[in-house]
């Protein structure tokens, strides 16, 4: 384990050669500059813009807290957008993880042709997200898609899927499950990495299958599960592309002249996530000041989440790797 720099300087250290330090600065400089320009500056600038009214054409105009007042009391869509995002945070990643774990579990037990199975389940995650969304919306089209046609063969009346406000999010969840391949591969490796002797010891102690899973398997793969959960939750917080493309394609509406933003959220605002609403306000309505206020709120929520995270999760501890 590497000790942090703070502690290292507390004990007498050999004098560092000057060129070591210059080297370090030179190697780090581009990244530091990058952090400054693309992280620190925009964060502060967003805060600044959130107190202005700015449409990019004329200079920004200071309006104090008016954006925030509108955000919390008058914006008709922001809270439903936040709820939609929350839905994805709560449901999408956990379901994906469970599914990936189950499939990985099955593959771990399969002896022959495991590489073949793994390829089949991994392949969908290689598909560019836009392509997979478009394909799914097409397949689940209530009138002309193959899925409803096959259901009809079994005598089931196919639902409206992406065109039904109450089914659109679950439909995207199906898509999320379809592309769980990269998560599954990680889980598979973790499962296979569990020391065999622990299983044997458990067997000797008389543990049955379920107990082995609970007492041997799970504790060993928890770090990987946690890592996937965290990155998945962060991804859900910013969920944009799949929902935006699904709305656009499912609405089937011609976009003549008006742009992407007119179809966001279809059907009936059910797929409008927080980041899409930010996009609409900022880049379709050109209310960049208001969009900045939305961004600041997003930052506060994400930061709060991160603070909790960084305290708890070892993997993100800058002290070192486990």
């Amino acid at each position, binding site marked *: 384990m590497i000790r*942090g720099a*703070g502690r290292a300087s507390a004990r007498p250290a050999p004098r560092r050669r000057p060129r070591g330090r210059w080297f370090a600065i030179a190697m780090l400089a581009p990244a530091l500059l990058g952090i400054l320009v693309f992280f*620190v*500056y925009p964060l*502060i*600038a967003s805060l*600044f*813009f959130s107190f202005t*009214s*700015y*449409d*990019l*054409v*004329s*200079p*920004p*105009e200071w*309006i104090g807290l*008016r*954006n925030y007042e*509108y955000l919390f009391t*008058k914006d*008709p869509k922001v809270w439903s957008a936040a709820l939609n995002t929350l839905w994805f945070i709560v449901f999408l990643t956990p379901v994906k993880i469970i599914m990936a774990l189950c499939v990985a579990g099955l593959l771990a037990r399969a002896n022959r042709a495991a590489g073949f199975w793994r390829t089949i389940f991994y392949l969908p995650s290689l598909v560019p997200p836009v392509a997979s969304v478009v394909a799914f919306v097409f397949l689940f089209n*209530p*009138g*002309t898609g193959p899925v409803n046609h096959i259901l009809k063969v079994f005598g089931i009346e196919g639902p*409206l899927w992406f*065109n*039904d406000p109450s089914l659109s999010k679950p439909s995207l969840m199906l898509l999320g499950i379809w592309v769980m391949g990269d998560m599954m591969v990680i889980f598979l490796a973790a499962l296979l990495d569990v020391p065999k002797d622990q299983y044997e010891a458990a067997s000797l102690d008389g543990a049955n299958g379920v107990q082995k899973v609970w007492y041997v398997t799970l504790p060993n793969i928890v770090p990987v599960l946690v890592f996937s959960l965290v990155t998945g939750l962060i991804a859900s917080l910013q969920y944009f592309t799949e929902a935006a493309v699904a709305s656009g394609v499912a609405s*089937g*509406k*011609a*976009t*003549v*002249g*008006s*742009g*992407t*933003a*007119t179809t966001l959220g279809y059907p*009936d*605002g059910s797929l409008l996530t927080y980041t899409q609403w930010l996009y609409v306000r900022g*880049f*379709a*309505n*050109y*209310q960049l000041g*208001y969009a900045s206020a939305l961004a600041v709120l997003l930052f506060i929520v994400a930061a709060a989440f991160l603070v909790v995270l960084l305290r708890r999760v070892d993997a993100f501890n*800058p*002290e070192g790797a486990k």
Partner: protein
Amino acid sequence: MQQRFTPRTGRRIAAGIAGAAAAALMLTACSGDTGSVDVADEAPDELSGTVSLWHFFTDREASVIQGVVDDFEAQNPGVTVEVHEGQDDEKLRKVIAAGSDDIDVGLSYSTDVVGNLCSTGAFRDLQPYIDRDEVDMSQISDTVQSYSEFEGTRCTMPVLADVNALFYNKDIFAEAGITEPPKTLDELEDIALKLTEYNDDGSIKRLGFNPFMGMYENTAAHFGPAVGGKWLDDDGYSAIGSDEGWPVLMQWQKDFVDEIGYDKLQAFTAGLGQEFSADNAFHTGQLAMTIDGEYRTAFIADQAPDLNYGTAPFPTATGFEDLYGSGYIVGNIAGIAKGSKNPELAWALLKYLSTDTDALVKMGNGLKNVPTTTAALESPDLEVSEQYQTFIDIALHPKTATTPPSLVGAGYTQAFGSYWEKFQAGTGGNLAEGLAGVDQEINDSVDLVSGP
């Protein structure tokens, strides 16, 4: 992890914040070049140079525009027009807002941008050019003029328009023994219910008319003229809640939906063919009547030439019969970007596209959109079929209405549309309260953008 916040660190952080704020201010203060603002006393005798035209058309329609552009170049040797096609409103705004001189003339699909672009000067004020060159504005109807200017500032010229009317399938009418298209909403509903057929399992096979909001061209704006529905008052605030017509129209529509059944209509609508494909439900006969724009005649001629159909002004509600013959009109608008380096050339192109009769007729014929000057509308070269004549008449009707430009762009129509969809689903509550809520939402939106 140790973090000692000494005064030194605190000062550094403060300095950082101040620096970033200053950087942000500086960056945004330079809001792009403004091309020369002065308008020359006289139009130049000869035009030369390059001018760029950004528009939203694609494919076949873009080639129609290209034809007209070629004519302009032929009339003005020494001028090259750089055309950027497929540019929707979002993209237009991005390019104008960047203040670049890449764009001279921008042609927008809708009037959504007029409010903002006129009030901020992103599109130049055209009045000096109009006065200097003595452009005859009386050629353009009051309604069309009203949607191409904002609060007295004329920053765009209209170029072609869309008009909506009722389309009806003559064969289906004949089968049922109906000879005349409906003139009132009640007649429309009667005929529609008569022509509606069901499958054995109860689902809809054919609709006389689909009242479902959100299908194809069923929008509040298009239905509004049936009751003369007013959108905004003179101050730019919502006039929806206080208008007499909207509640009448909304109640009629909801009753119609309930008569057939909301769920059935929703399922039927979701399974209909795409609006601009050959599977359009009116083309296939799944809809006996529908409301649509004049461009539909071109699509029918192209995709369903055997369809025996007629057109008529859209019916009006009881108590609003004097409005019959009018309809909804809105159109493309074009302006000169403020960053344009060659405004005289841009104006020449813009004037050509919006007032030259031959150009308008050519575009009107190619795109099957309605021209916006009287001269072009009455031109013998304009191809007018029997069905197309309806649209010309509506365009010339004095009571034909539009949706006014606003600082919130399409925000107010979207707010009303969202509520109407809730109302039709039965979740909209009390109508009067709901409309008051729509007013509030729109007014709040306007306040957000219109300054302290």
